[in-house]
């Protein structure tokens, strides 16, 4: 494994084992966490209720009546010692259509302007400025120019956290709102720190808001074809490419969703961490070609 520092473990009282792979975000830290959690899942330990992978950490929820905490810790640490971080990943790339600068997030961000760093502008204008980009169009071009890696699913049901496949210097970074909003439109594209997200449901949120997608990503009724297997669409390791669309295309897609006919463009893909690290500009373009 490239990451040599050992994982830091800590018990979240008697039902959780928390593991910090790294205190900073990187794809390497994510891959290491993924390797260890997959190794733990393969052990199929009695009493392990849930193995939760996050961006640069993971957590195991367990029943201490069935597995003693230190027995679990020993098993996880030996899995860590033996886990060979997979440097390639069989995954899929998904094209997500986005109406950037849409009227619904705009209405919401105006409503909560007093909670924002820059009450005089919009979230997109603010994000463009603090990332040194000329204008909103340049920001949208950067946001949709390179694919994103789903590095965590959570906060609320089915919400993907995404990390863009660019060199660290080009990572888009924005702070969260000064105080969280009590409302965020469903299917809003958000951004906080270095992470993008798609709000799977309407609700509270603190990320900056850039647009909306017409594509449902969580649905307990499982009405669309790509949600038939599971009500939650995204999994860590998925790769996402955003595709800017206009209002007309958005309205058409929403009508297709309502009619139960909407589908996503999804292609299988092999991702190589080493190929990305060797050529962080050129390699993501080859991934995008899979969608062509």
């Amino acid at each position, binding site marked *: 494994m490239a990451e040599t520092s050992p994982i830091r473990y*800590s*018990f*979240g*009282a*008697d*039902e*959780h084992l*928390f593991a*910090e792979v*790294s*205190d*900073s*975000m*990187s794809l390497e830290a994510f891959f290491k966490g993924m390797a260890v959690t997959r190794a733990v899942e393969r052990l199929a330990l009695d009493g392990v*209720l*849930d*193995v*939760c*992978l*996050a*961006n*640069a*950490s*993971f*957590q195991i*929820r367990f029943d*201490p*009546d069935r597995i003693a*905490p230190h027995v679990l810790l020993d098993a996880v640490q030996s899995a860590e010692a033996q886990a060979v971080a997979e440097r390639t990943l069989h995954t899929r790339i998904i094209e997500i259509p986005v109406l950037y600068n849409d009227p619904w997030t705009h209405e919401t961000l105006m409503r909560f302007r007093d909670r924002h760093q820059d009450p005089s502008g919009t979230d997109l204008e603010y994000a463009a400025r603090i990332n040194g980009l000329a204008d909103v169009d340049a920001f949208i071009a950067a946001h949709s120019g390179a694919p994103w890696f789903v590095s*965590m*699913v*959570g*906060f*609320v*049901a*089915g*919400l993907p*956290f995404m*990390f863009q496949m660019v060199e*660290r210097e080009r990572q888009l970074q924005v*702070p*969260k709102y000064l105080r969280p909003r009590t409302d965020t439109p469903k299917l809003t594209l958000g951004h*906080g*720190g*270095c*992470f993008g997200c798609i709000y*799977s*449901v309407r*609700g509270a949120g603190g990320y900056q808001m850039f647009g909306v997608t017409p594509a449902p990503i*969580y649905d*307990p009724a499982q009405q669309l074809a790509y949600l038939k297997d599971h*009500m*939650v669409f995204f999994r860590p390791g998925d790769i996402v490419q955003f595709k800017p669309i206009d209002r007309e295309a958005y309205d058409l897609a929403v009508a297709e969703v309502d009619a139960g006919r909407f589908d996503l463009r999804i292609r299988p893909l092999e991702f190589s961490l080493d190929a990305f690290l060797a050529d962080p500009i050129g390699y993501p373009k080859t991934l995008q070609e899979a969608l062509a």
Partner: protein
Amino acid sequence: MIKVLKPGLATSVQDLGREGYYHLGIPPSGALDQYALSAANHLVGNPPGAAGLECTLIGPELEFRRDALVALSGALMAPRLDGEVVHQDTAFQVRAGQVLRFEFPLAGARTYLAVAGGIDVPLVLGSRSTYTLGALGGFHGRRLQAGDELPIGEPSGQGRAGNSLPMALRRAVGGDVTLRVVPGLYYERLTAAAKSSFFAEPWTVGSEADRIGYRFKGGSALSFQPREQPFGAGSDPSNIVDSCYPIGSIQVPAGLEPIVLHRDAVSGGGYAMIGTVISADLDLIGQMQPNQRAGFVAVSLEQALEARRVYKKRLKAMTGLFNT
């Protein structure tokens, strides 16, 4: 069938919860006071994990459309059946057409209603519990509304009116609460002064206290040790690279007001957690009202496991008590 005449403040169908989907952001849900729901179920002859109603602060008004055996456990909410007082922790017979009403709790925050046969909503991901944020499970994925008609399952026939929980197995609710906490996770990022004041000072439950989490106020602000924030963590010293949140974990956004996550928790986020309330004390949080006083005390993992053994022993003592 039970007809909801008035829904109350936040009444929802809950069982003991669902496990195995937290990695997709779907929390366990289930009764915040698992002991009370289990007790009510035992009294009416249900398995302890049958679905009941969790009635929070302002209880519902319910009309029974058929005869039913019912029990209530948890917060003391002065229940009356057609105006007649009914007793807590004791099974009672309801006739078709009778109406059950509650008052604001004298003590505690949530009372649990079990009906023989259970509330017969569909299993979703292995549970009948409501997860409101995700519009999942329970009765149409939401809190109850006026006019809802709740189906009742087939009674086991094991329950009897008059079944009463022995005094030794009843719990007092209300009063000052001490929550036991295993320090850990990002605890070491706190300054020594913050570590000390968090456990030394009294806190009170804030108005933002629900199934997702309980916010506490009144103690000193907690400072984190200064550091250059790691890449991706966000700029505030209380920020971390977004990670998973244990149920019961305590986060302190901007160092101001601690939030203890409960069974409808957001599954992760970017605030450092400083410790976790032990599993045996989670029920106590579910019975706390806004403005109630609370303190936190540090315990070891071994003490948490011992407390869990004591808790589970009491739960187990109910098994078979009322079998005929």
